[in-house]
């Protein structure tokens, strides 16, 4: 009598799992299947041709490279901001904390035109940069800044809970043993934060790579210079090159997947290292 297998104590298993699978199947799996199928229609030759095209390469390099650089910046400053918000008390801290989520709550198109207005040569900040001869709007720098904007909350919000629950005893022990503040930071605090930092970095990266609305306005969309990969997909769609659009989409997803898998491995390694270091 395999009674334990037959009975589930709480009701609703079939209904909840069934509905979830059905919904996911319809909304996520079916469309993604269409993507894969359509992309395959381009054939291997077509795919290689697409990847070899200089414009594609430029766009992919900008999307992924820019996102990487932007996420690195976010990792550094996100850590700083998370640290300041958790460890220090100062007037306006609560307000600042709420502001962190702005990129998350603000519609991307609004962010896009705002950033453009801000960094255009006659904008508040663009003006200052212009004095140094640096163009921000319609350059790769502008793309990077937009990517920093969208990825910022991910790092901060991933680090905050870890910082809040961190045991101060370790730091105090290190200090009483004679470690300088910087040593305590790199040897004691950073290892504990490393997994969360990597997670935040990965989330910011994933967001920045696929970002569209916040970036296309400030990018200027100059072919070979400031075209991002998502824009290429839109253009292919407008030209009814569905197979090409689908193939590019699959390529983007593929790269993202590889990146995230690598990061996840890095995370696991860093967690093990953090637990075993003296």
């Amino acid at each position: 009598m395999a009674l334990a297998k037959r009975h589930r104590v709480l009701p609703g298993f079939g209904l909840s799992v069934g509905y979830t699978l059905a919904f996911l199947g319809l909304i996520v799996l079916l469309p993604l299947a269409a993507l894969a199928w359509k992309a395959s229609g381009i054939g291997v030759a077509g795919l290689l041709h697409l990847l070899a095209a200089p414009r594609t390469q430029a766009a992919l390099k900008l999307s992924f490279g820019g996102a990487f650089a932007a996420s690195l910046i976010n990792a550094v400053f996100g850590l700083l901001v998370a640290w300041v918000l958790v460890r220090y008390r100062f007037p306006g801290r609560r307000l600042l904390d709420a502001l962190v989520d702005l990129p998350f709550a603000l519609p991307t198109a609004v962010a896009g035109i705002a950033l453009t207005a801000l960094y255009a040569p006659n904008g508040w900040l663009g003006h200052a940069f212009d004095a140094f001869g640096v163009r921000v709007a319609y350059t790769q720098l502008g793309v990077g800044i937009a990517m920093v904007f969208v990825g910022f909350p991910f790092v901060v919000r991933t680090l905050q809970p870890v910082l809040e629950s961190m045991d101060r005893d370790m730091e105090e022990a290190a200090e009483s043993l004679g470690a300088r503040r910087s040593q305590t930071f790199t040897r004691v605090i950073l290892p504990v934060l490393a997994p969360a930092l990597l997670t935040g970095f990965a989330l910011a990266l994933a967001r920045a790579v696929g970002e569209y609305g916040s970036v296309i306005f400030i990018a200027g969309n100059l072919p070979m210079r400031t075209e991002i990969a998502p824009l290429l997909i839109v253009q292919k769609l407008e030209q009814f090159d569905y197979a090409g659009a689908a193939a590019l989409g699959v390529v983007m997803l593929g790269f993202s997947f590889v990146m995230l898998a690598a990061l996840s491995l890095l995370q696991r390694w860093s967690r093990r290292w953090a637990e075993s270091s003296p």
Partner: protein
Amino acid sequence: MNAMVLPRTSIWPRRLQRALLILVAVAFMLVFLLLPLAVVFTEALAKGVQTFMAAITLPEAWSSIRLTLLVAAMVVPLNVVFGVAAAWAMARFEFRGKALLGALIDLPFAVSPVIAGLIYVLLFGAQGWFGPWLDAHGIRIIFAVPGLVLASIFVTLPFVARELIPLMQAQGSEDEEAARVLGASGWQMFFRVTLPNIRWALLYGVLLCNARAMGEFGAVSVVSGHIRGLTTTMPLEVEMRYNEYDYAGAFAVASLLALLALLTLAIKSLLEWRYGEDLAAHAPGGR
């Protein structure tokens, strides 16, 4: 609090360091976050309040507002039902493939919004899988409201589920078990015990889902066809005006969206402050 007594001479570098860090953090956030927000409002009012009012009372503006609200009104309830069902399945049962299901629920987060729109075009567009069939029956999904709704559902799918699953896992099933032993039926248990226990996290998820649904641009842009008055949501209206060099008009609509964002942030902070323990990890992507 660090109970160590430091010699007076070494406190100042500490204090200075602290002040410096705070300064840099604040400066970074002001430049990168606050300035863009401020620009929206200054640009919207750059040509005076009259122009502003005129810009947002144009018929296109009204229809875009109506459409945005309509889409959100359809997307949010559907994702709430999904989120609750998914959370019940994931948090209360053990079964094979559970990790895979979790990854599927999170999948839309990892997909670019443009791709989210693309996949529906490939499914329901004129050359899509169902294109001919839809055409034959006179049903329009792409370049019509249903397409907007579908793309928005995809993009906001994980929001409610991600708020509920960790919370329900942390709460455990004891309350529901108690209700069952006391004689409650499945639905009685759900409405009298489960829902009250998750209500604040549910509200939080609704808030985030709504903000994203109303503000979604990339996915909606791909499936909408930019048909003014018909398939133009507020973010699309912003883009169209901007591309027509109607900056004041674009920023006027944008300022409404920015106000919505600020309202979302305010309610979010309120919920976190009052009901912090009843909410799970509220990092936007956090686990």
